[in-house]
């Protein structure tokens, strides 16, 4: 289990690589014959040369922004899976709207989808309020029940004479290139209403979202606010269906908002970042879909936003996985260095500080490690300027046969570590009444993290001791300042 947990970041990274790599690969595989055409299309997309590209770019960016805005509220109010259910539940509405208008008429589809969405929400509320069905089962029931009706109607429409299916199929996975100017108007209006609502009701939304009972006590009608939010959520999903599709519409709500929640804590910044990320995801997805002609846009939008999420998860400041890994590695290296230095000190001490140098063999047996690891540890000390080595005889340098001596800085460092260790042991035996043979393991851990202030305090409490509980001398401050082995502690 622990190994799996450790592997998880790696797996996530793999998914990220796939997410970034696959659309590229596919773009080359599906529509493109050569490299040249790939670049041609890229340029065409970003220079906004023709109207269809302009519509796609504008539409997907605006959808991303409105989903990012509403998504922030969805995620903070724990409605993520509610959004998923709602987006599946509009499918029968779309089919009925299509049947009603007998063509892909935007207004009919919109009315149908809104109706179905409302019915879905009412069923959900009814199941939760009036029966013992739990929330997760209720969501599952509404989701799959409505979706099943939708699938039946869609397969039925396919077999009817006016079943001009090509338009309807794109509602499952989205097709951004099929966005029309009327769609754009719908998207723009939704975004306008959403922004207006957020601007006017920002404070109320904030209070109801974080402390419901408080907001009720100061007279905010939390329920009606909640219903407006649901309504806007439904509009947001419905207008984005053409670009992202029924099945994955909830992803564009959830993923940018979750990504933003990793970065900031304040709601204003959260909304802003979430909207920006949503816009990037929409733009990126429609770009890849444009490259690989005929690729469904929805999954690509989701993959782009998942890629952004993984990037943020790994590299966000202070808490990012890679950043954390880097720091913990740095720490591990430091602890290794300190352990090596301590071993060197103890070897010198066992010879009563008669020699200034030790040989590698002694260090190997003291640390209980093999020659390769020992060479690595010594190399790390040398890199940090804490020690120098020279071959035992000037002519040949055999691994594991060299002579190691500490630099003044290294000596001071070694004294400090040993001092930390022994002071702590003494503290545990004298003040915390531990048995002297129980203190070593504890001190092994804490010696690396004791700060200077703590050491001063320990000295004060223990009144500047000279010997540790095992009778060994504690290197004193003067030893450390001398930086010289000849002035050994015994003198």
């Amino acid at each position, binding site marked *: *289990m622990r190994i799996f*947990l450790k592997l*998880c970041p790696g*797996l*996530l990274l793999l*998914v990220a690589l796939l*997410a970034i790599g*696959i*659309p590229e*690969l*596919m773009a080359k*595989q599906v529509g493109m014959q050569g490299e040249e055409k790939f670049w041609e299309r890229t340029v065409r997309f970003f220079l906004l040369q023709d109207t269809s590209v302009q519509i796609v770019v504008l539409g997907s960016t605006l959808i991303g922004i409105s989903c990012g805005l509403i998504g922030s509220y969805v*995620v903070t109010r*724990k409605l*993520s*899976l509610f*959004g*998923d259910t709602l987006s599946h539940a509009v499918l029968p509405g779309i089919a009925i709207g299509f049947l009603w208008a007998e063509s892909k008429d935007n207004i009919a589809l919109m009315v149908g989808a809104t109706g179905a969405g409302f019915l879905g929400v009412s069923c959900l509320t009814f*199941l939760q309020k*009036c*029966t*013992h*069905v739990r929330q*997760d*089962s209720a*969501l*599952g*029931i509404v*989701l*799959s*029940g409505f*979706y*099943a*009706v939708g*699938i*039946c109607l869609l*397969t*039925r429409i396919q*077999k*009817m*004479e006016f079943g001009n299916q090509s338009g309807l199929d794109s509602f*499952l996975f989205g097709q951004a290139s099929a966005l029309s100017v009327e769609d754009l108007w719908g998207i723009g209006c939704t975004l306008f209403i959403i922004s207006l609502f957020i601007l006017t009701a920002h404070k109320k939304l904030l209070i109801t979202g974080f402390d419901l009972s408080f907001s009720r006590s100061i007279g905010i009608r939390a329920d009606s606010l909640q219903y407006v939010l649901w309504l806007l959520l439904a509009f947001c999903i419905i207008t984005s269906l053409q670009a992202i599709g029924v*099945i*994955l519409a909830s*992803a564009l709500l*959830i*993923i940018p*908002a*979750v990504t933003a*929640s*990793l970065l900031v804590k304040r709601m204003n910044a959260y909304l802003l970042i979430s909207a920006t990320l949503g816009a990037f995801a929409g733009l990126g997805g429609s770009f890849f879909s444009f490259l690989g002609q005929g*690729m*469904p846009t*929805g*999954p690509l939008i*989701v*993959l782009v936003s*998942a890629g952004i*999420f993984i990037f943020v*998860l790994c590299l966000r400041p202070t808490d990012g996985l890679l950043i954390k890994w880097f720091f913990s590695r740095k720490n591990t290296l430091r602890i290794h260095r300190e352990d090596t230095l301590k071993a060197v000190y103890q070897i010198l001490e066992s010879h009563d500080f008669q020699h200034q140098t030790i040989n590698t063999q002694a260090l190997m047996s003291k640390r209980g490690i093999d020659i390769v690891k020992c060479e690595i540890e010594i190399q790390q000390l040398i890199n940090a300027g804490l020690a120098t080595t020279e071959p035992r005889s000037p002519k040949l340098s055999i691994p594991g046969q060299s002579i190691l001596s500490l630099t003044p800085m290294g000596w001071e460092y070694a004294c400090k570590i040993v001092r930390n260790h022994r002071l702590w042991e003494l503290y545990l035996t004298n003040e915390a009444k531990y048995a002297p043979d129980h203190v070593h393991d504890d001190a092994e851990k804490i010696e690396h993290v004791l700060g200077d202030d703590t050491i001063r305090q320990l000295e004060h409490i223990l009144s500047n001791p000279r010997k540790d509980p095992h009778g060994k001398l504690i290197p004193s401050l003067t030893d450390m300042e001398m930086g010289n082995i000849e002035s050994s502690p015994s003198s």
Partner: protein
Amino acid sequence: MPLIPDFTINQVFTQPWSTTQLITWNLQIILMGLLVCWTCGLVGSFIVIRRMALMGDAISHGILPGLAIAFITVGSLGIGTMFIGACLAGLTCNFCIEWLHTNTKIREDAAMGLVFTSFFALGVTLISGNAGNIDLDPGCILYGELGLIPLAEKVEINGTLFGNRAIWTMGVVFICVVTGAIVFYRQLLISSFDSTLAKSIGMPVKVIHLGLMLTLALATVASLEAVGVILVVAMFVFPSVTASFFFNRLSFILLSSFPLGILYTLGGFHLAHWLDCSIAGAIAVTATLLFIPACLLGPNGGVCSRFMHR
């Protein structure tokens, strides 16, 4: 052609069973439908009482990239490779959700929504990107096609024909699930209702959970050809929730997934025959239609009985 064709008993109920050829064809469909309903109903009951109905949804979406990769590398619809791919993807999905949930401040529902949509998107992109090379299209995985099950190739061992591969696979999975449910009934019961008690009497709660997740993946993969990844959620959730309006005891709920499965399959089959639409969709619609009266009139916590009590 109107949306709802005329209903004639002859056309809907008698015609599918009129000739020997039609009977053998339709019996295979019914048999497959029954096996899918029973298997998913049994697994789903445990999922629902553990409040993990949406985990079922997440896993069934999350196995898609595994299926796609297995299919692209091996190139066949064999249950073995597909199952391995699906299990790996499902477990990865599960671990990612739990990892995000425990190691970051992301809440469980958001983590679930994030991970399974991403996995699903990856799967759909892989499939539609390779659409030219493989005969696996998103539509097939999304809604399945129960009507085409009799077309699956025949199993042949030592020259003897044994019949339809898809049905055999589903049958084996069904027998596995039934055996598992009978053998581990006590463990599943205790760990589902009181995981602390289960831990204190020394049950490997995590192993049971993992086993259930694997069974879920197995059931999903096996029923994929027939009902697709989204409607399989209906097969998981509806039987046990419908039964919960009649019974309190888990054993009764488990057993009632058998008669419910028969009702769903026969009802769905004839509904699809009448309306000329997807059979899997019609089965799920039947399940919904049966759920509504159960929810309203069921003696155990139905809306009417609650109203009467007040």
